[in-house]
């Protein structure tokens, strides 16, 4: 009834090719943005930021990054944790080496460093595919964690091997360190998340994204029609690692404040982000958000319902959490093998016809 193209006339190509061609979708998107930027910062407290919004926003960036590589370019990667570590350690080294430069640029530079490292570890993708590539990126994961544990220069020779984020400000407002305000860190991460999503969305529907998808769908055919696999694959690794690096830098500097590489960026992190992408939907920006929300927010929600709401023992709740999340993952993937994004797509398709489906 409300959700349809009919009557929504486009008079220019720009209008016709916008991200949300349906009016209702577009207004919903603006509404979410206005809420996120103008309402949430005023009502948010420490718990909501540190337990819910910040992990959600940061993992969303990581999932967007990995989605570009796995979902759009078809290169399986298990090195996400390692690349996040590159972002975090890069950010730390920059923050301590150039304390006068704004943290905003440090985080982008950390993304740049990660992009370079990503390209380096993406080189094997030119020769190997599928499971074999997954193993090669697994090597990146273990090597990078080992490196940051092994070489004291990366953690500035601190006795514990931990890196801790010093206090840094943006326009005089603290965004890292101990004395941050909830709204400041939230907005800081939100800006990065929204920018990443917009950049990723526009990259993936442009020429570059089409090249990636051509490689994903059939690399030999792509080569025949003139896509250079070297450029396409390595650019996917670079762009993907750039976003993953930004998420790693935010994860360390803004969210946790102190990390040790083995615990924060271990193989579990790689799997977590990969699962976000798979559950959310391969090759979909919305899917990255949905997957991150599913895997970050659901455990917190379950914990609050089971422990705070029902008063169950914490260990029982923690074990049940695994079972429920696991069961839901299986249920969702059986119902819709292409992830939450596809579920959403089907729902929209039905909404267009509603209430007269025949």
């Amino acid at each position, binding site marked *: 009834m409300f959700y349809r193209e009919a009557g929504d006339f486009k008079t220019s190509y720009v209008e016709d090719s916008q991200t949300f061609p349906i009016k209702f979708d577009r207004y919903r998107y603006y509404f*979410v943005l206005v*809420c*996120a930027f103008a309402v949430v910062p005023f009502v948010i407290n*420490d*718990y909501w930021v*540190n*337990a*819910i919004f910040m*992990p*959600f926003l940061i993992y969303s960036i990581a999932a967007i990054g990995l989605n570009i590589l796995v979902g759009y370019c078809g290169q399986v990667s298990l090195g996400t944790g390692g690349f996040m570590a590159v972002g975090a350690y890069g950010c730390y080294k920059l923050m301590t080496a150039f304390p006068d430069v704004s943290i905003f640029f440090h985080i982008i530079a950390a993304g740049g460093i990660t992009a370079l490292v990503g390209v380096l570890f993406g080189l094997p993708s030119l020769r190997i595919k599928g499971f074999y590539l997954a193993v090669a990126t697994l090597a990146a994961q273990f090597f990078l964690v080992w490196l940051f*544990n092994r070489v004291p220069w990366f953690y500035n020779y601190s*006795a*514990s*091997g*931990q890196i*801790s984020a*010093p*206090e840094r400000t943006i326009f005089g407002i603290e965004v890292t*360190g*101990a*004395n941050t305000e909830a709204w400041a860190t939230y907005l800081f991460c939100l800006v990065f998340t929204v920018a990443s999503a917009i950049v990723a969305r526009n990259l993936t529907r442009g020429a570059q994204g089409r090249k990636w998808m051509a490689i994903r769908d059939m690399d030999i055919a792509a080569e025949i029609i003139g896509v250079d696999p070297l450029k396409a694959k390595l650019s996917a690794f670079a762009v993907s690692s750039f976003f993953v690096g930004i998420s790693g830098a935010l994860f360390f500097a803004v*969210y*946790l*404040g*102190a*990390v*040790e590489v*083995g*615990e*924060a960026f*271990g193989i579990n992190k790689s799997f977590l982000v990969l699962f976000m992408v798979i559950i959310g939907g391969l090759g979909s920006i*919305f899917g990255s*958000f*949905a997957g991150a*929300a*599913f895997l970050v*927010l659901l455990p*917190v*929600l379950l*914990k*609050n*319902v089971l*422990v*705070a*709401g029902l008063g169950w*023992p*914490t*260990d029982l*709740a*923690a*074990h049940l959490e695994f079972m429920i999340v696991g069961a839901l993952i299986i249920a969702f993937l059986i119902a819709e093998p292409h992830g939450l994004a596809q579920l959403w797509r089907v729902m929209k398709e039905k909404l267009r016809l509603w209430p007269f489906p025949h």
Partner: protein
Amino acid sequence: MKMKLATLALGAVMAAGPALADLVFPSMSYRTGPYAAGGIPFADGYADYFTLLNERDGGIGGEKIDMPECETAYNTEKGVECYEATKDLGSLVYQPLSTGITYQLIPKVTADGIPMLTSGLGRTSAKNGAVFPWLFNFPANYWDGASVAIKHILDEEGGDVNDKKITLVYHNSAYGKEPIRTLEELSKKHGFDLSLVPVDHPGQEQKSQWLQIRRDRPDYVIMYGWGVMNQVAIQEAVNIRFPMDKFIGIWWSGSENDVRPAGAAADGYKALTFHNLGDDYPLYDDLKTFVYDKGLAAGAGDQHGTALYNRGLYGAMLVAEAAKTAQEIHGVSAITPAMMRDGMEALEMTEEKMAALGLPAFGPEFQVTCENHGGNGFAAIGQWDAAASEWKMITDYIQSDQEIVQPLIEADSMAYAEENGITPSCD
């Protein structure tokens, strides 16, 4: 993005959290994950002591105790969630029982003004209260542990360890790396050769490490392990026939769960401790009457008298005594976190006090001051008796080498103060 709406619904659940009691001692426990073997007994002991105070004395100074428990799984992200979820309940003191989470929380508790006690763990230089006013790590810390282990080796070797080989097997994390600097200083002082063998989280696979140890043939092995890593290490040591009485664990590598899997072969394994072991104390009679027999015991109730359960009791006892001290200082029974801090800074543990609590000679005596948030660094050595299936204390409390440890603490805390723009002060 739609998912956010679902999370907003969560707000209602959050608001209906546990009822606000007067004295809140949150328990950041981990009863799941690879470190649960250590987390469960500690959490049980911590909870049972507070239950006892509630049942027997009606709380502390007439104020009931509330102990919201939060599962961290030894994971820093969950630790942050737990901290944020409990800090607004009026939490008086945190004991995260995880060095990783401790590092995470140091800036947060300092900014929020909530004290944190990390007995035998965490950031060692927190002992300097002039730099870390909200952190306490009495009665002993990692560097004390390393030094006491070396002192014990010196005793065994008749005071000369020149050219002996000592290997440190450690959890490759902030926790395991803590003693390295102290051991390096000690090796310079006493002339032993130190070699370092890291084990990555969680430590279920240590074949290569122990192969290296078998090749190196060290005279002693010191272990800084936790969770599943401990039992694997002890089993591997048994497999390479390393003499158990030359194998010394830190207090986190000295629980029943660590030695039992290796069976009789683990007999003679040594571990440090900063409190007494076993259940032969009058307090256990009270616990039986007021807690166990009433069916109020935390968890499965099968950990009573184990080393880590005792550590949980001890940790709870220390903060309960600090709360009493705070109540005396400020003359109010409903204390705030800031008053709690004053109580912790004025805490004095004496022989008489411990005896009156039903825990005679349970831990070392110490007096907390602003300059010294970490006690006097006394620890004892326990040895596993596999036949009797119990830990036996084989030494008295030994003081760590303050000549080595103190300057290191001074240097590290001052470096922290400089990095973070803190002016150390004790006023």
